[in-house]
């Protein structure tokens, strides 16, 4: 499973749970296996189990001390080699839900791709292109829904004025990452209002930016908890800080809501604090009418939306003029409440795009980055300058420990597909990479070539195929998910079926249901070789474990003539040894089971004739019915003539028939029939020289008896015919 070129420390499959520090040339740190065996270790054995599970057996070197024989001689452990989303935020059950849920959209998209490929000859490239883009968008939405429902604002009619932050379920990193990729790679609409898409993204996922350090979200949560206990809210610096924080990242509804909690709105105070209240309200109105370059305002969010850039620029300049005017207003002098005055003017400075005020009103560099779009570079379009801006923001607010989301954003802004994939892989695992590639290549021909070009170093496959193979291996590591691995493997044009064959071959055959499932997959993908192997393995397992009927059944399903013939041979050996009814009955059922399809196995033809012969022989045991005896002789002659009758059965057959040869009333065999049997006896003496010839378990005089009987019969037949 190759890892990425640009960064050797980030592997496609995070095999090690403790990746080495970036840039280290040294081999990765060893992961200690806790097996509880006292050192020294004699030897370690490994075996790959399902998918990328490794079984490790640690054998202990015996020492003098434990001559008593107690203590373990070793331990066998199963080591799971990565393969899931990072930080353990998604538990196993949830991961399986996502794995199963993403199969239908993935296979739908693959099916549509194949249809479009087939249509390239007849339809215009541009129409195919836009159709494909629609499909990818649909796929992306399906996956996005799978990762968690969109966070909707509270639907309650009566809002609690004290609830400034809507309580929503904590979003997952996986969803945040997927959403980020969607914004940059799929959502065509967002190219003109990309900054606003990022503002919305931050509103949804700000809480994920950092675990250890405060974010605007975490500070507002702190403020929210404190609000109810505050008597004079505007005296508390945290109140003003909260408003500036919310304003800095464009959460205007929170800004307005908080401002309206200001004490000057209270009925008993409004007369004394008229100017102060006017200023608070003016700022609230300005904030709520901020022009935004976006299609429409997200539900419940304030601001005036403009779809057209020139309208937006006009409105923006007018709005900025109003702020500047308020900033210079004489009313500030009349505002007696110091904190209110300072707090409001700070808000105005933020809206005017003052870097110092903005920097202190944000916690994380990503928040500062978003503030830049809102107040300093409102006319930014597309990716232009975003990367250098991000770098500048990181310098102003350095991160102590970066998480995968920010690495991913950096890769996207740097327009480096390999880094994006590496980040997806190391932070979110193979599921993410496999599914995200569809987004990366949807609108980007360069990435499409990079990811879908076949490479000799990878054994002739593309990076895309490689990631699918890797993901399929991860899926096959778990008994509950291996069954969906084939969906991904068949989407791999070069090596998918090869891996699928190996995967199916390694499934145990002890459980009937499992074998059926295995065979169903083989049939679906036309893997006849493997289904035949699976059936042979199942057949041999049952044959050797005393379930001969099941064994024969599976070997017949496998059309394994070689083994069926050998089974037939074994049957002869058992039934050929004696005419006793007991042993015959024991095998008769099996012969029945072997079926009447003579073509399946040559030996079967003989067995069936042999059974018929034995049955007719039983009918003549009392020695009275000449008709029955004649039928038995016909069966005997047929058997002796048939090329499928093994020579080593000739003598036992004749020995069984001595009674027929010596039939009292009249000779049952004519001259030519008797001659045939005699010539077979002659041949037998040469056949005995063959090394494979097994001597039947007959009395030593058997040959003599048969010869004598044949000679007598010949004599009587000659006389009769004469």
């Amino acid at each position, binding site marked *: *499973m*190759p*890892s990425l*070129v640009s960064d*050797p420390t980030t592997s496609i499959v995070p*095999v090690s*749970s403790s990746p080495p520090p970036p840039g280290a040339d040294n*081999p990765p740190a060893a*992961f*200690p*296996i*806790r*097996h*509880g065996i006292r*050192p020294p*270790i004699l*030897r*370690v*054995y*490994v*075996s*790959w*189990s399902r998918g990328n599970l490794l*079984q490790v057996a640690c054998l*202990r070197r015996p020492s003098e001390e*434990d001559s008593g024989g107690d203590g*373990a*001689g*070793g*331990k*066998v*452990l*199963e*080591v*799971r080699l990565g393969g899931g989303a990072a930080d353990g935020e998604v538990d196993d059950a949830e991961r399986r839900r996502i794995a199963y849920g993403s199969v239908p959209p993935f296979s739908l998209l693959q099916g549509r791709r194949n249809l479009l490929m087939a249509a390239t000859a007849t339809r215009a490239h541009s129409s195919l292109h836009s159709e494909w883009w629609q499909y990818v968008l649909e796929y992306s939405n399906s996956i996005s829904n799978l990762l968690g429902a969109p966070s909707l604002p509270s639907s309650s009619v009566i809002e609690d004025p004290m609830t400034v932050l809507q309580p929503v379920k904590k979003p997952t990193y996986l969803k945040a990452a997927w959403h980020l990729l969607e914004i940059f790679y799929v959502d065509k609409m967002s190219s003109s209002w990309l900054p606003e898409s990022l503002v919305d993204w931050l509103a949804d996922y700000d809480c994920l930016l950092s675990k250890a350090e405060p974010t605007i979200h975490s500070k507002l949560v702190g403020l929210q908890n404190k609000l109810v206990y505050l008597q004079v809210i505007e005296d508390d610096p945290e109140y003003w800080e909260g408003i500036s924080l919310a304003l800095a990242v464009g959460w205007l509804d929170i800004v307005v809501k908080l401002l309206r909690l200001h004490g000057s709105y209270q009925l008993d105070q409004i007369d004394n604090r008229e100017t102060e209240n006017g200023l608070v309200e003016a700022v609230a109105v300005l904030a709520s009418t901020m022009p935004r370059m976006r299609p429409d305002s997200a539900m419940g969010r304030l601001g005036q939306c403009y779809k057209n850039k020139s309208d937006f620029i006009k409105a923006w300049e007018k709005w900025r003029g109003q702020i500047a005017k308020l900033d210079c207003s004489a009313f500030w002098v009349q505002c007696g409440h110091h904190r209110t005055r300072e707090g409001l003017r700070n808000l105005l400075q933020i809206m005017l795009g003052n870097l110092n005020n903005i920097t202190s009103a944000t916690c994380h560099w990503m928040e500062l980055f978003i503030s830049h779009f809102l107040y300093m570079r409102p006319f930014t379009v597309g990716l232009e300058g975003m990367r250098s801006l991000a770098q500048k923001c990181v310098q102003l607010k350095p991160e102590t420990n970066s998480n995968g989301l920010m690495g991913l954003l950096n890769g996207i802004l740097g327009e480096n597909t390999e880094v994006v994939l590496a980040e997806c892989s190391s932070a979110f695992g193979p599921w993410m990479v496999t599914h995200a590639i569809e987004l990366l290549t949807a609108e980007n021909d360069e990435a499409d070539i990079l990811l879908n070009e076949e490479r*000799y*170093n*990878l054994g002739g496959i593309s990076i895309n195929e490689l990631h699918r193979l*890797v993901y399929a*291996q991860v899926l096959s590591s778990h008994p509950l998910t291996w069954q969906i691995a084939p969906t991904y493997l068949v989407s791999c044009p*070069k090596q998918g*079926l*090869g*891996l699928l*064959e*190996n995967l199916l*071959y390694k499934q*145990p055959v*002890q459980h009937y249901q*499992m074998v059926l499932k295995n065979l169903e997959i083989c049939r679906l993908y036309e893997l006849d070789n493997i289904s035949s192997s699976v059936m042979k393995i199942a057949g*041999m*397992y049952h*044959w*050797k*474990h*005393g379930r001969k009927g099941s064994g024969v059944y599976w070997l017949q399903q496998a059309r*394994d003539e*070689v083994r069926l013939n*050998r089974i037939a041979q*074994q049957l002869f050996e058992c039934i050929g040894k004696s005419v006793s009814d007991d042993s015959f009955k024991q095998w008769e059922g099996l012969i029945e089971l072997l079926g009447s399809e003579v073509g399946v196995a040559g030996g079967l033809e003989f067995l069936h004739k042999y059974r018929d012969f034995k049955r007719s022989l039983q009918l003549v045991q009392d020695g009275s019915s000449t008709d029955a005896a004649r039928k038995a002789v016909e069966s005997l002659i047929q058997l002796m003539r048939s090329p499928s009758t093994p020579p080593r059965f000739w003598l036992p057959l004749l020995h069984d028939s001595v009674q027929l040869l010596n039939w009292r009333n009249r000779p049952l065999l004519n001259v030519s029939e008797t001659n045939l049997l005699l010539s077979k006896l002659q041949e037998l003496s040469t056949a005995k020289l063959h090394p494979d010839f097994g001597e039947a378990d007959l009395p030593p005089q058997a040959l003599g008896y048969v010869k004598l009987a044949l000679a007598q019969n010949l004599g009587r037949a000659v006389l009769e015919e004469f």
Partner: protein
Amino acid sequence: MEKELATLENGARCCGWNYCGRRMAVGHADGTVSVLDSLEPSSPSFSRSSKWKACNDSVVDVVWVPPEFGDAVACICADGTLSLWEEVEEDNQPLTWKHCKVFESSNSRVLDLQFGVFATSLKLVVAYSDGHVKIYELLDPLELSKWQLQAEFQNVIDSVSRYGKPACVSASIAWNPRRGESQQSSFVLGYNSDLPQVNSPKIWEFEESHQRWLPVAELASPGDRDDRVHTVAWAPNIGRPYEIIAVATSKGIAIWHLGLNPESDGRLPTDKIAVLSGHDGEVCQLEWDMGGMTLASTGGDGMVKLWQSDLNGVWHEQSSLDCNGGQQ
């Protein structure tokens, strides 16, 4: 990350897993072999299902027979004998491990063996301590007792020259793991001996037209021909235009590419693309995953290392597991 599956009895010397990794055979110093099973899909842990005395000396290696031929293991004993045991269950009789065959050899010891499945036949390659290799074929797919010697030769390229009798410490065999009716039988064999000519790993292929085994490639650079080979492993090929074989010598683990089409002289093109070092001391085992993309190695240093190639085809150590730790 790790989960305990089984505790082995005191005196465990060697072990081997079956094709699906759900059964394990463990050889002990007292000559017994035990079989541990984990056949319930819901639980990965193993429990012992059988134990029997396979030989008088210590068991040094156990190898499972391919599943198309039943549940059976081959045991190599410290005295160099090789015996085959098969699990059978007859009507109303309890399950037993039946002795099927002993491969006798008067003056040399068995060092390694591997089974290969081809079309309907089962082949067995056995490497002996005198540098000779014997290839047996199973005559009856239902009877593990009936074997025929198909060929015997020394692991040397030049079969005409006579070499002295080497003293071999160990040998390592790996069949080409590709299944399929049309597949040519081929395997790689390397020795750890005092005779340089037998040491280097050679690829042996069965030539149908002349019914003989021919060396079609040698996996050694000119300067490394004398290197003693510790172990070899042939990667499963799920569709690559070349084969990958890993060879461990005292110089490290070499990764070889082997072309699929012979050159004019009948030899297959070889290319050593990497030499990986990392184990402190001898490499004991090499094991490819089912896609042939990750190589696991174990060493005398008690480490398990995982190796992968990057997108440029550069091989590197991906991860390592330290089994020397001990206490839980």
